[in-house]
């Protein structure tokens, strides 16, 4: 998904087009509002549309890229793209799964299970290491953050449904 310097990038053009559509939509949504509420969002939506159109065009033509044109982080991978794609999907699955689990059974159990599962299967660590890390996590979260500090850690909707 990385676009090379000076090359056209269809994915980037699509991304710009998507944001352009978003800008148009925001502009339209502001139509029924009184002017004091609508002026600023519409002006900004207009700016988004213009800038994204420029990005889209430049991305399709592949011109305009210069040294120093990227000023943020970049994903430098020495790995073949298929590996990158597979690992990225796996990573998203881990994050998504963790969040769904946290929503269902509560962040604390989900956290402990994540430590155990990730270290053991994605990290390839031994059972002792994984279990030990999970235990330490559990003590730190339950003992320290919940009991001592009373931090608001959510307990999960299943618990609520079952508890009623």
């Amino acid at each position: 998904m990385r676009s090379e310097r000076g090359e056209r990038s269809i994915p980037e053009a699509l991304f710009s087009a998507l944001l352009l559509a978003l800008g148009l939509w925001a502009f339209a949504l502001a139509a029924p509002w009184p002017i004091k509420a609508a002026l600023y969002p519409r002006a900004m939506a207009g700016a988004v549309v213009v800038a994204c159109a420029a990005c889209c065009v430049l991305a399709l033509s592949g011109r305009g890229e210069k040294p120093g044109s990227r000023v943020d982080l970049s994903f430098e991978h020495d790995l073949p793209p298929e590996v990158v794609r597979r690992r990225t999907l796996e990573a998203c699955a881990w994050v998504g799964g963790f969040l769904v689990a946290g929503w269902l059974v509560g962040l604390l159990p989900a956290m402990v299970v994540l430590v155990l599962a990730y270290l053991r299967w994605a990290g390839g660590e031994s059972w002792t290491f994984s279990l030990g890390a999970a235990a330490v996590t559990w003590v730190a979260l339950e003992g320290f953050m919940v009991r001592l500090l009373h931090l608001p850690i959510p307990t999960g909707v299943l618990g609520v449904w079952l508890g009623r």
Partner: protein
Amino acid sequence: MVEALLEGLVRVLEPNVLTYMLLGVFLGFWVGILPGLGGTVTLALMLPFVYGMEPVQAFAFLLGMHSVVATTGDLTSILFGIPGEGISAALVLDGHAMAKKGEAGRALGANLMSSLIGALVGAAALAAAIPVVRPLVLTFGAPELFLLAVMGIAFIASLSGRGARGLARGVAAGALGLLVSSVGQDPQAGILRYTFGQLYLWGGIDLVPAVVGLFAIPEILDLMVRRTSIATTMPAGRLTGVWDGVKDCFRHLGLTLRCSLIGTFIGIMPGLGGGVAQWVSYGHAVQSARTAEERARFGQGDVRGLLGPSAANNSKEGGALIPTVAFGVPGSSAMAVLLGGFFLTGLVPGPDMLSRHLPVTYSMVWTLVLANVVTVALCFPLLPYLARLTTIRATRLVPFLMLLVFLGAYTANNSWGDVLAAVAFGALGYAMVSFGWPRAPLVLGLVLGDIAERYLWISVARYGWDWLGRPAVVVLMALTVAVLVVPLLQEWRERRSGAVLREAAHAE
């Protein structure tokens, strides 16, 4: 005034006051590092305990804790790319990039030293400004605040990449941030803008989960894909030392001091919000680069990109204390909690604090100074060990990083909405990084858009169009134009000198 200054110092050095301050420092150290423990919330938690204390004691404790949080919160930004306390996201750009190059020790050292300098400048400004603070703050009305916000927005140009494509991406990102900042209830007509019936969006997009998602999630995903340690390269086979970082800070002392002053000034202006200081400083640091190659290094691990925001983050705290003490108007949410401390100890913030209770005010200044010095002294020995965390295998760190991110996002407001927002911005951030879109302008737009809109309408409602002629407004407009034009001028000058060099080469 000098007697009050000295009296303040003497009071702070009393043993029981000093003990409370050290206790506060100890607490603040952990608050900055641990997820889920917000600085403001912990201050609120500690507040009832100061009832019955002497004012100097109470503020030694509260300020001691508060001033440390800004420093230690930077650590997770640099080491893991996860914005810590005070939304220190700007540090992630160059600070974390340095950590990835194996220069974590250097980054941490530079950060600590510039934090100290920033804090000292902020404290000095607080002390020195006391005679002029009231006229200073009172000069900046709604029109001036509007122009300040616009000037901040103008930095989007500096934070974008070079060339047509870089500029287009930066402007698009900035415009998107400005648009998103209008989500929520409109302050003029009370219309719920872009909330789609969601209660969560009533108050607009909360900055903390957005920034955390935008910067931390792409970083974590990248780690999960790379499966190496955070530091992928190691110069000369060892981690660069902490002292190199300290020396860097002094090598670029001018920049550090200038950014400290920027941070202090922004802290003094209530209504601008603390998130602004670090980005404007970062933009200023970028502008200080003299050539295209230098500019290209920002975002890849240039220490100057770290020094600016780091100093500004700390100096703004000293600045924020000024309106709180002198007007009873909190300069930040932490200051709002601190106001409670005033009431509980029987003080009334306002002109009295600058006259009758001047020694108490100066004792606050000294607390800021001493607390920061103590923190830096205590943290320095830890830095090499902290730096070594970047050599741990990524897979061992990832679960704990996810904990930092999501637990932090949730406990900020006790809200799953924040977690979803972090994920949404994470996806956006990932896309932006993949396509080379800079994220800094987006954050700048998000932070300043709301403020700019509010003060524009206030200015128009209050003054009609007369405010355009006010002297401060004209000056600020000129400065804004300067901010926009400087990067273009630099580019034009280089192209010219590049052309001259090419001609010279041809002639030979």
